[in-house]
């Protein structure tokens, strides 16, 4: 019996050593990476009268942070009753240099759709959207589009990027289905 106890104590001792020896130092958290982060939606607006401006909508931090960081919301200031060519670009400015995500989205244009909504939909302060570019299948993509400014006034434009929409012909985010990757709301001043 004494022998048994000795054996037991020995095994316990070995197990304890094993137990403690397994400590490693790899627990320090690596810097988390917000995957496929988009921080910025940039509109490049031009027309044939020499107008050339960019408007930024930016939320610095992604979902893995307790703070939203710096938020930039430009007002879209345009001349009333004019037509403009608009190109949408997406950036990840958390990286240095900043990463242009537009090319990736363009390469998968079949799986993406930009949607534009104006409040008010017509009249002063409104913008109407037409001649959006198409994806590889000839369906709507709208990464490049024409803005037609209404009469002088104020309003708002919501630009939504949908991933894997179920209906590419849809005009609203709800009808388009899929997942929203970006939802940017700009105030609009037409003067």
């Amino acid at each position, binding site marked *: 019996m004494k022998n*048994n106890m000795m054996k037991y104590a020995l095994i316990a001792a070995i197990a304890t050593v094993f137990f403690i020896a397994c*400590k490693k130092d790899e*627990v320090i958290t690596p810097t988390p990476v917000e995957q496929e982060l988009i921080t910025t939606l940039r509109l490049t607006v031009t027309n044939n009268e020499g107008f050339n401006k960019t408007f930024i909508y930016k939320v610095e931090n992604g979902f893995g942070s307790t703070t939203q960081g710096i938020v930039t919301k430009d007002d879209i200031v345009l001349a009333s009753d004019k037509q403009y060519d608009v190109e949408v670009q997406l950036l990840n400015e958390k990286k240095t240099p900043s990463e242009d995500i537009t090319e990736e989205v363009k390469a998968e244009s079949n799986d993406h759709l930009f949607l534009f909504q104006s409040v008010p939909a017509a009249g002063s302060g409104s913008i109407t959207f037409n001649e959006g570019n198409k994806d590889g299948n000839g369906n709507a993509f709208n990464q490049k589009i024409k803005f037609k400014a209404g009469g002088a006034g104020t309003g708002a434009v919501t630009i939504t990027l949908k*991933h894997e929409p179920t209906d590419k012909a849809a005009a609203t985010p709800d009808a388009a289905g899929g997942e929203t990757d970006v939802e940017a709301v700009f105030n609009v001043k037409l003067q």
Partner: protein
Amino acid sequence: MNRVLVTIGVWLCIGLHYAGAQDSCNITVECRVVETHNLQPLFAVSVYIDEMKREFETDEDGRFQIANACAGTYHIHFHAAGYEHLVKEVKLEANAILRFSLAHINKELDEVVVADERTKIIIQSKSSMKRADITANSGKTLGDMLQGVNGVSVLSNGATIAKPVIHGLYGNRIIILNNGIRQEDQQWGGEHAPNIDPFLANNITVLKGASGVRYGTDAIGGVVLVEPSAVRTMQGWGGEVNLAGFSNNRMGVASAVVEHGFKYIKGLGVRLQGTFKQGGNYRIPGYWAANTGTEENNYSATVAYKRAHFGAEVFYSHFNTQLGVYRGAHTGNQADLMAAIDSDTPRIHTGFTYSIDRPMQQVQHDLLKLKLNTDNRAGAFSLVYAYQHNYRQEYDVIRSNSDKAQLNLTLNTQTMNLNFDHKAIGDFTGQAGIDGVYQENFMQDGDRLFIPNYRSPGVAVYIIERYRFRKLTLEAGLRYDYRHYEVYNPEGNNQTIVRYDFDYSNASGTIGLRHKVKPNWEWTVTLANAWRAPQANELFSAGLHHGSARIELGDKNLQPEKAYSLNFETAYNVPEKLHVELSLYTQYINDFIYLSPGADVLTIRGYFKSFNYKQTNAWLNGADASVKYNITKPLEAHLKASFLFARDIKQNDWLILMPADRISAGVKYTFNISKTFREVFAGIDGRYILRQWRIPANFDMVDYPRPPADYIVLDAEAGTTIILNGHPVYFSVTVMNALNKQYRDYLDAFRYFINQPGTNVVLRLRVPFNFYGLISKN
């Protein structure tokens, strides 16, 4: 030694002649096991009958009952810590009352088994699933299987991800013990199911109410014990094959176990077990649910060595699953979520497929357990060391063509337990022990943030004593836990790593009283407490929950939850006529952690609702009742009901996401056709789940839509046991949701999007095999 040879010889004969030995199969035998010298009843003696391949366990009065036995000769094995291993040959011809006596070990014997009795000494409100119940539900996940236990409901994500809910509490408020080892897998959310293969289980017991003393921190709501049978160390081969096919998601499940007891190394046994499962998209009435496939590959190996006063066991198991998450549940922002909720039909149309795409989870769980035990005049000692490795990968829906997971989370846990069961001192029995734990949680470089890395050592000591006085048994226990957490949390715009240290410690206690008024009537009262330290996600989470399109924010100042529960349970039994159980419980949880709505947070995808982890005091009251009544001998009717009232005391309001009241009823007709076709049965079951109307006043701010309507679902089953060459082969057909009812359940996370699965026809086959004599031609 000689006795063993003789016994083996007898087995040989029985093995050969067994099939011809039965005529009628309705014999009931009342058995009682006592100590040889003082004739005191022996409690928690495990009893095994070779020919039936069934296990029994004595109650506090030393009693157990063999029901529906066929006439014939049986070999009954008795195992109890500190007692000789007894094998008795018994000839059964009619109903009988038998008494067996075991002698305490006082000299070296050839074979002695010291079983793990830690889980057996318990006065607690409990329900269990025996081997037959498990077989009748084989192929289901552990969570789904436990739904049959009164007082247990399930928190699910569709048909493939299920977590057990005991008296309204789930996740980190309950503990699952897998083969005696506390399961340490990653239970960070409702979509993280326990990583356990139910085919390992021979017996599943649910302990209801706080059980902190025996099982340590977190056992607030209760404990699920998943227990395999003892490894065969008797010479020869044994095992079984289980097959199941499910029509709804065209799922096939196959599981096999092989056991061998060695001839030349006495007391050495080995068991190998493996399970394979594959299912595709499941079908809800009218539609396929996109990307809801499931795949599972599990295996385990056990080597056990049992000698006089010494035993050793090595157990290794590997669990590997891949689970698709319903594609329509993955939304970009609140507007997407609302559109998906308000859509009458699933927004994603799909056909049947076995392939699993993003979003999906892949989880592996490895468990290595080493156990040594020994006993002497003082009592029985056991030392258990376990290492668990849990690796969870989550694949989000992404833009690029990467095959990488966005989360690669590892949780490594080492535990050690040293336990001493002392020999009875007068009328006192009991145990004391030390528990140690060391845990590490880490993510991989390149992951998005989900749970910050941490490490955590802990230690605990406990003592439980039990006193028997005539028909009364009194049990009391104390435990003290200490746990340290060292967390490395990335913070601020630059995600700088900040270290936090937390120390938690607390005492737990339990007092239980059991009164066996008559052999067939007993009642139990338990007063116990348990506590739980806030877990990493409650302290630190700072991010989006993909399924619910909401941001959850942790709070570093959360205090541990402390729970106090009082359970009363009574059981009344008239053999083969009536069985009634009633359980009443009340539980008060101090600093109950819950999610409270906060400010909206702006993101690049628009505004999201945010939720903060907060604390309140909760008070849960409820009742479970069940009645089984044999209208005629073969026709049994059963009725079960569960009620729960869960209050937030500080707000004076109901708690959110608590299981609704439920009632289930059924009838089952069981008869024997012949010696070959036994226990032929056909039955029908209905369960009625009420609408959960006990919801907080601010429900509409927190959740949408309101809890789904009440529903009735019907299941039907039929089956038989066929005796083939002496082996009971089980076959059954079950039809779940027989009427293809469209319904949603409040505790299902997919209730926002799709209905519960439609009709599911399940075929089950179980083929056991057992060879005693093949090796003994000499």
